[in-house]
């Protein structure tokens, strides 16, 4: 039996195969497409569990399987696969949540005419994500990273006939691309410094050699800059401020896609990457940037989520906010808490999204919470599971997983030596989270139905409720993997034995840290219920209670603090300004210069002719013509002529050879 590191590549390869099958199956073979996708995920899940078992047997050991990809002369580029507890936990989470989402999709997308294509894209997405997880090379990570971007583009724009969906897909693609540019630059820079792309290679990967680097100022600067550049990629993918704008728009895709993107995969990629290269970040001063960006994002997402009306949009902004938490955790140096929160969040957010999908499906694609209402008695399972998800997200104490992971982050932030500002921002976000989730629950499940479709809503079939139930169970149980009393997960992730640090006193450490946050959660829930629970919404058109009180603030929040408008006004404007400037430059300066030369030639010719006619009468005519000919030739250089370009290439080749030979003193 081969060890699991050798078969690790099967985990992404199987969904890729399923994607291929999905790509070639016709509409009539739809069950083949979904069947292969589901079974690929199931087998991958099984393999991931084996990998997890192997990884847990030796925490703190990074098993690698490297191979040479490109070898030209002395340049040798290696790719590889890596197995350690971080990878293994993420693998299990992604394959499990992915499998449930796939299962849910078979119900949700039943009527869609591009069913097979959908599963093809889903599998491609999963394959790329799993590729990121098992990669042992920044380059391989980047390749998969881009494939994730492509797949998310395809999935968000799956209903491309809707203009909003098409626009959202483009937005997601382009916005994340901005971040990826930073990633790419960082990657190349890193390669030029360290000469390797491998994370771990028996003491030669850059994460291992980083500790040997002397902390001189240039090295510190370079490594910090690389860290920040890599973080740019994470900003794009994980929807951090200021590139968070694509994430809520991505809700235009089918709901399982939203669940997949927001819960398990795409947004997790950024956090995972940061956790993976943590030794690199730790070395420089990039972590501070990460912490502040994370804190800002956490607050921003929570604030905006308060005033949204689309059920999926609220969840999207809560994702933005939670991702901010995770980045905050990484920034303050407790990346194991970030991963813990990532795992718990993946489950309860997938649960929430699929619950929302269930609601939407039952309510005939009604997504506006003002039009829903009173669903609690009609959809009992959905209501129960959604409530569990909501309480996990809000951080209701002791029973729900979100509480434990959030606690771990806040604890880390509190002990951060640099500043306490992120910690206080986090506390504010805790209140807001509890508040907007209460608002969501009150509007969707209580009161009375406010549209015709909702009145006739009923529970969905097992394909959709089974994933909900399973996820709900996980959303509760998973928290106990990492309680302060028993930090098993953290210990495994760090590869250290933390049992010595097992202190019950930690719970009440500091200024009553845990008590504070419990109080804050209660506060949020209380305010929320006070505003939305007691006086329930009567009609669709009623203004929100908060809207009546603070109309200006509300509309700003409703418009997501005008980020889109801001970007449209600044970046897009700048872009088109730049474009028209280039146009102008080309039209007037370049072309003008060419024209000028030719005009000059003509002028010279004219002058010549005048002299000519008076003095020599004939001789210079030819010269003038010649010069005009040269002028014409110059202006032809800009003619879009293939030959011209070819010729320039030939001249360039000659020039390069000459230069090289001069340089080499031949």
């Amino acid at each position, binding site marked *: 039996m081969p060890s699991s590191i050798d078969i690790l590549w099967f985990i992404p390869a199987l969904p890729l195969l399923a994607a291929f099958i999905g790509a070639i199956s016709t509409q009539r073979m739809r069950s083949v497409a979904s069947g292969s996708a589901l079974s690929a995920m199931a087998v991958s899940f099984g393999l991931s569990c084996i990998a997890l078992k192997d990884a847990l047997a030796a925490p703190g050991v990074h098993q690698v399987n490297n191979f040479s990809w490109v070898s030209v002369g002395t340049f040798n580029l290696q790719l590889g696969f890596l197995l350690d507890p971080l990878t293994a936990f993420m693998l299990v989470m992604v394959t499990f949540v992915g499998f449930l989402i796939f299962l849910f999709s078979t119900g949700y997308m039943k009527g869609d005419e591009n069913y097979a294509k959908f599963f093809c894209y889903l599998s491609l997405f999963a394959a790329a994500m799993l590729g990121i997880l098992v990669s042992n090379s920044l380059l391989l990570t980047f390749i998969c990273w881009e494939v994730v971007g492509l797949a998310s583009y395809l999935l968000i724009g799956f209903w491309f006939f809707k203009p909003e969906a098409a626009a959202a897909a483009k937005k997601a693609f382009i916005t994340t691309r901005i971040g990826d540019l930073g990633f790419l630059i960082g990657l190349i820079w890193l390669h030029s410094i360290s000469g390797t792309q491998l994370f771990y290679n028996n003491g030669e990967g850059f994460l291992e050699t980083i500790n040997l680097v002397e902390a001189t100022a240039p090295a510190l600067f370079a490594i910090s800059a690389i860290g920040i550049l890599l973080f740019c990629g994470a900003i794009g993918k994980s929807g951090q401020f200021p590139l968070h704008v694509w994430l809520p728009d991505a809700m235009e895709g089918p709901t399982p896609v939203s669940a997949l993107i927001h819960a398990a995969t795409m947004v997790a990629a950024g956090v995972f990457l940061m956790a993976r290269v943590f030794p690199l970040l730790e070395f420089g001063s990039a972590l501070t940037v990460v912490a502040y960006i994370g804190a800002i994002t956490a607050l921003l997402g929570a604030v905006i989520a308060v005033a949204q009306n689309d059920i999926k949009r609220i969840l999207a902004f809560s994702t933005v906010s939670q991702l901010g938490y995770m980045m905050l955790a990484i920034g303050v140096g407790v990346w194991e808490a970030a991963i813990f929160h990532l795992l718990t969040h993946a489950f309860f957010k997938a649960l929430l999204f699929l619950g929302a999908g269930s609601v939407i499906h039952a309510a005939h694609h009604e997504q506006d919470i003002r039009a829903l209402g009173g669903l609690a008695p009609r959809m009992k399972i959905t209501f129960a599971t959604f409530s569990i998800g909501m309480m996990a997200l809000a951080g209701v104490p002791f029973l729900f997983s979100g509480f434990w992971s959030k606690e771990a982050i806040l604890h880390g932030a509190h002990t951060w030596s640099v500043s306490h500002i992120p910690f206080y921002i986090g506390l504010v976000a805790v209140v807001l989270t509890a508040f907007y989730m209460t608002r969501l629950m009150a509007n969707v499940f209580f009161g009375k139905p406010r549209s015709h479709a909702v009145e006739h809503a009923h529970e969905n079939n097992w394909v959709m409720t089974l994933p909900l139930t399973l996820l709900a169970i996980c959303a509760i149980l998973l928290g106990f993997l990492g309680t302060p009393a028993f930090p098993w997960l953290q210990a495994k992730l760090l590869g250290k034995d933390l049992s010595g640090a097992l202190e019950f006193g930690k719970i009440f450490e500091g200024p009553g840290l845990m008590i504070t946050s419990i109080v804050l959660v209660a506060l949020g829930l209380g305010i929320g219920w006070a505003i939305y629970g007691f006086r329930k919404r009567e009609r669709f058109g009623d203004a929100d209670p908060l809207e009546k009180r603070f109309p200006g603030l509300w509309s700003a929040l409703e418009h997501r603090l005008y980020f889109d408008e801001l970007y449209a006004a600044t970046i897009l404007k700048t872009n088109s300004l730049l474009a028209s400037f280039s146009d102008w430059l*080309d*039209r007037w300066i370049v*072309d003008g210069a060419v024209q000028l030369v030719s005009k000059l030639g003509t002028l010279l010719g004219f002058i010549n002719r005048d002299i000519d006619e008076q003095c020599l009468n004939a001789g210079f005519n030819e010269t003038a013509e010649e010069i005009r000919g040269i002028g014409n030739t110059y202006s032809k250089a*800009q*003619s*879009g*002529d*293939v*030959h011209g370009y*070819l*010729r320039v290439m*030939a001249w360039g080749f000659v020039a390069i050879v000459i230069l090289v030979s001069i340089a080499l003193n031949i």
Partner: protein
Amino acid sequence: MTILHLCLIFSALLFSLGLAAALARSSGILVLLGIELMLNAANINFIAFWKFSPNPENGTGAMFAIFSIAVAAAEAAVGLALIIAIYRHQSSIRLQDANTLKG
């Protein structure tokens, strides 16, 4: 000056002739033929290096030449199809006329 030098100069001259054709002829077909010649010159290099390599018995150069010929055939087919399409579009195969994209 060794024999390999002679082979290489032969191929370099052939390459330059192809380049000259590609640069100085305006008919798309002839430009394409010039490019084919350049490919052939590259093949000559492969074969020459193979002949004078220390271990010619594994035949890498010849393999390369065979694949290169196959790709050149595909290139010729597609290129000529493109020329026919251009011709249908603007009833001329002068490459100077195919400058719709000029600034």
